[in-house]
């Protein structure tokens, strides 16, 4: 097709960083980047929705909101930060909770002051709990209930996971779990998860390692280590029987969701499966678009992606068949594409294409200081921040045989979970 192009000889940019650990167990990574006048302080807590009590789901995320309700010595979190020209936000996933600040580097110490105080202790205000319960309930409605297809993952997760706590979404199983949250639960959750041992801090931008060391000792050094949370989650057993469910709702178009379990982020086989989703769905040259949208129009929209979870993850195919297309036929056409991956070795060019795209996306991502800082934090959580620079080798090594092998391992009838989401 095209002449061969390889990235192998590429002199890529690396994310340089230094690492140290405080006596209380807080891990600190420092990435100096003097092309910007800004600094980033990112703190990742090793707690996500998977660590929740099944009777109190949505708690990690509700807790994230409460982290902005004032800490033991500082009544307002946002205001002092805005006063020095900074901004912040946070997100919670099934695996982790991540908080970040960007601010002019000259005012870096304000970020240390604010973040260390809320790691030390929160204010635990009843008013804040009451308001944030409402805010999170409105978020639940806005994103999951008052949207067409918004509740799909509330329905799908429990079909896919029978044992593992990935069976609920980060927002929680139901509104009542959030409505019933008590201040004692909030305090217990803080004690269990929010301490230096369970956190990873990344400081990046126009900062100096020595300065960060000094500030980290000053503000975080005095915080007690706390107890190390030892995670002991059930493993999801292998699926032996196909699961099919049909629901009807007030949506304009039928939709089909098909999920297969897949390796966790740092597990063997993950890069190959990640590349499979690109082969199927990255760009308009991808197989699903070319075969099922363009050439043989079965879907108006179809994509494949995966969740990048730490534990056994989800490989998802999601499509909206065109009006008049029978769901069984749409399902069959998806299988046809999966069978092609199982039965035929993919051409070298196609594999090179998705690898090139992967590397290029990574390169574009590195234009953002915040993205770089988050990547370091994520990979440190996955095992070692150096993986942020070396994980790419695991992608380069993937060959056509491995793609075929993983396709055969994943895409079997009995391991599929299919949800037909039909228009009333």
């Amino acid at each position: 097709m095209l002449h061969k192009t390889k990235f192998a000889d590429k002199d890529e940019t690396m994310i340089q960083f230094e690492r140290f650990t405080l006596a209380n167990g807080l891990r600190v990574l420092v990435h100096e980047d003097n092309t910007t006048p800004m600094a980033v302080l990112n703190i990742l807590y090793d707690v996500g929705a998977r660590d929740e009590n099944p009777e109190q789901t949505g708690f990690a995320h509700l807790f994230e909101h409460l982290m902005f309700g004032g800490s033991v010595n500082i009544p307002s979190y946002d205001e002092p930060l805005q006063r020095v020209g900074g901004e912040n936000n946070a997100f919670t996933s099934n695996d982790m909770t991540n908080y970040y600040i960007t601010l002019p580097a000259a005012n870096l110490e304000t970020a240390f002051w604010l973040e260390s105080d809320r790691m030390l202790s929160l204010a635990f205000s009843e008013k804040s709990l009451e308001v944030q319960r409402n805010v999170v309930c409105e978020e639940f409605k806005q994103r999951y209930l008052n949207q067409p297809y918004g509740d799909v993952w509330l329905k799908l997760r429990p079909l896919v996971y029978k044992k593992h706590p990935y069976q609920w979404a980060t927002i929680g199983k139901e509104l009542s779990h959030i409505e019933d949250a008590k201040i004692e639960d909030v305090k217990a959750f803080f004690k269990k998860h929010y301490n230096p041992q369970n956190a990873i801090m990344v400081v990046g931008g126009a900062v100096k390692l020595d300065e960060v060391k000094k500030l980290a000792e000053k503000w975080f050094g005095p915080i007690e280590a706390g107890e190390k949370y030892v995670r002991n989650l059930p493993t999801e057993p292998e699926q032996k029987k196909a699961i099919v469910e049909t629901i009807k709702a007030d949506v304009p178009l039928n939709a089909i969701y098909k999920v297969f379990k897949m390796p966790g982020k740092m597990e063997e086989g993950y890069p190959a499966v990640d590349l499979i989703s690109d082969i199927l769905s990255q760009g308009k040259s991808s197989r699903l678009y070319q075969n099922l949208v363009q050439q043989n129009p079965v879907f108006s929209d179809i994509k494949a992606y995966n969740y990048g979870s730490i534990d056994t993850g989800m490989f998802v195919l999601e499509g909206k068949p065109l009006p008049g297309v029978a769901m069984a036929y749409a399902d069959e056409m998806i299988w046809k594409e999966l069978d092609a991956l199982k039965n035929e070795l993919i051409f070298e060019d196609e594999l090179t294409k998705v690898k090139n795209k992967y590397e290029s996306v990574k390169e574009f991502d590195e234009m953002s200081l915040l993205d770089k800082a988050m990547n370091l934090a994520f990979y440190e959580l996955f095992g070692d921040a150096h993986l942020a620079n070396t994980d790419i080798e695991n992608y380069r090594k993937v060959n056509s045989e491995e793609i075929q092998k993983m396709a055969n391992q994943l895409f079997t009838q009995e391991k599929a979970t299919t949800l037909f989401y039909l228009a009333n």
Partner: protein
Amino acid sequence: MIDRQQAPDFKQIEDITFIKAKKHLLNNGIPVFEINAGEQELVRIEFIFQNSAWSIDKPIMPSVTNGMLTEGTHSLSSAQIAAKIDYYGAFFQPDFSSDHSSLSLYSLNKYVGDTLPIIKEMLTGSIFPDKELETLLRNQKQRLKVGLEKNDVLARRAFLSALFGDSLYGYANQIEDYDKVKRDNLMAYYQKVYHPANCTIVVSGKITQNILKSILDLFGNWHNEQNVAPFEVEFISSNDKLHYIEKSDALQSAIRIGMPNINKTHPDFIQLQILNTIFGGYFGSRLMNNIREDKGYTYGIGSGMGSLQKAGYFFIASEVGADVCKATLTEIEKEINILKTDLVPEEELALVKNYLMGSLLGSLENAFSHADKFKSLYFYGLDYDYYDRYIQTVKNIQPKELKVLANKYWDYNEFYKVIVGKM
């Protein structure tokens, strides 16, 4: 022991450095603006065309023309274009906005020699093949059907229609519009808009001589006799202030409130932006503090100032619990009126000033963001002294000026109010 109640000292931001665009001119008159910065060996090249005469009988023609650029040329099929671009790890992005139609290339530097010629194909030799056109229309139609089930989408559509009527700025696409698109019309629009005299190129990233030479070689000899059509947008706002779309089963109501307003070229714009920030323009704003952080009525509420080349508008947007929709409107009105009667406290204003300076500094992260800043000036006929003025205004503005502005521009009774859900 450190005193944790005492905030550390902080510094005011004094200087903000802009990487200014350097202008080149191709032989055929196309201006090329270069923003050279960054460590990564990559580049974004944007080809921007001013929209032209929009008409109500062919309302989606300009956006469909733009979307079809990637769908086939004299020498390359849609599939071949996609395969080539994807193979080099590049991205292209057609983009249609109220004022411009554009096509952007994101590419690693070493492949620009391979990827840029494909862009040229799309800009000079698109053929709008029937099959691909059918696919695009079919899929956009399905997507619109889903959009029409979302209250926030309905609210935004009704709001812009109320403000800008049946004009390019106000028109909301209808399902049946997709059945009326004709290939010939697209071809005619393509000829009329995508030509060198109507083209601006903005290139940002780590730019080498080779990249500039590629642009010159490929686009310097692009000739065409077309003249630039004038770009005018005329609109008549709705007579009705309240637009209520009832959804009996709604859990939340989507709210949009506002009115046509000045745009960036007006001398009051920067000051009004500061007032808007206090009111609803950042996380610590009065709307957020009152309606989310104090009352918990919503996941988010904010206000903003939309600037278009031929108009501007002010808007407030939120999705709130259906049972508290009325209460939210009352609070919004109250917050507007407080700004008209009471002076903004010095401490709050000082905070907002610092916040705005910090966010301006933070918004200049990389070459792409510097290029975006440039575009936000250039297409309004403004120069970098706009930002000198911005910085001076932020530093010097006084509470009494803000109060005058609130009275001059904001009148809750004059605002258009769109509610989708229950009230």
